[in-house]
């Protein structure tokens, strides 16, 4: 599923990318990176729902 989604998504990304200017793409990239960073930061700062978790990245 991941594989199929990424293959199709890449093609859609190429088509959308062609219609955007370089600066717009940079802003879009920055928003994506900052969003991921924000989520990771919140995950570290906010108290988790449960004080136990599965080992191995869960």
């Amino acid at each position, binding site marked *: 599923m991941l594989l199929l989604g990424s293959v199709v998504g890449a*093609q859609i990304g190429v*088509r959308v990318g062609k219609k955007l200017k370089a600066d717009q793409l940079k802003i879009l990239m920055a928003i994506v990176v900052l969003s991921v960073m924000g989520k990771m930061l919140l995950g570290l700062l*906010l108290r988790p729902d*449960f*004080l136990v*978790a599965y080992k191995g990245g869960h």
Partner: protein
Amino acid sequence: MRRLALAAIGLAVFAVFARPAVSQSSPPAGLIVAAPEHVEITLFYGGANIEVAAQVPAGYEVAVRLMARPERLELKRLGKKAGVLWMGVGDASFENIPVVYQVLTSAPLVDLGPQPERARWKLGYDALVPDTAPGASLRAELVGLKEHEGLFAVRESALQRGNPRDASKIPLLSNATAGDLGSPPASDASVLMRGSFHLPARVPAGDYALDLIGFKDHRAVHLASAALHVEQVGVVRTVRELALDHGLFYGIGACLVAIVAGLVTGRLFRSKSDGAH
């Protein structure tokens, strides 16, 4: 010699009088059936509802327990580091924790019977992780995590009483009574109980045990049991077997899927862009 003879007579008298007493106190009969008894995990499996029907001797409060594969569970304990960051701060080990644990009762758990009796049949989270067990201080956290996943549930008073005459209207229950599950109690001396379990999407495959436990006069007795089989089928099973047992074929298959998906998508998008220009 005389002492030996006296002992032999004593044993014989005990055996004669003990036998009828045992037969008179034979455990009451109950019956439990689940529908479906066989759950198939397919590509589009998103969980399943298991309907449970039970015939219970009159006067009993009951609990139905669904449980599978008690095993050692290793989790990581989360805590604060440097005063602000929530991270893993150690390990938490639990013994005999089932993969799935769900309980339905006909009355609040505390009203069923005394705690030792409930603990004997592992009814309630305090029985699952006793105060003396390793990881007991993190019992609430473990239960919260498992309940969040839908694997654990204790639903008190969730069993609904029905008319015993309705038992014949439940196909599985009437089939089971006619089958090899044994004779059910007489309908005029029994009560029909119904409820349902929900198995979440991430339920593991395997054999699950359904147990019907009755409570009367502060004593618990095992009334009946049934089995539930959860199995992966079709593509899910094939992919799992390939991934676990035939890594090379799994890798080749994944590459083929990627290549075919890339070719198909490339052709689709190319034809669309060709048409647009």
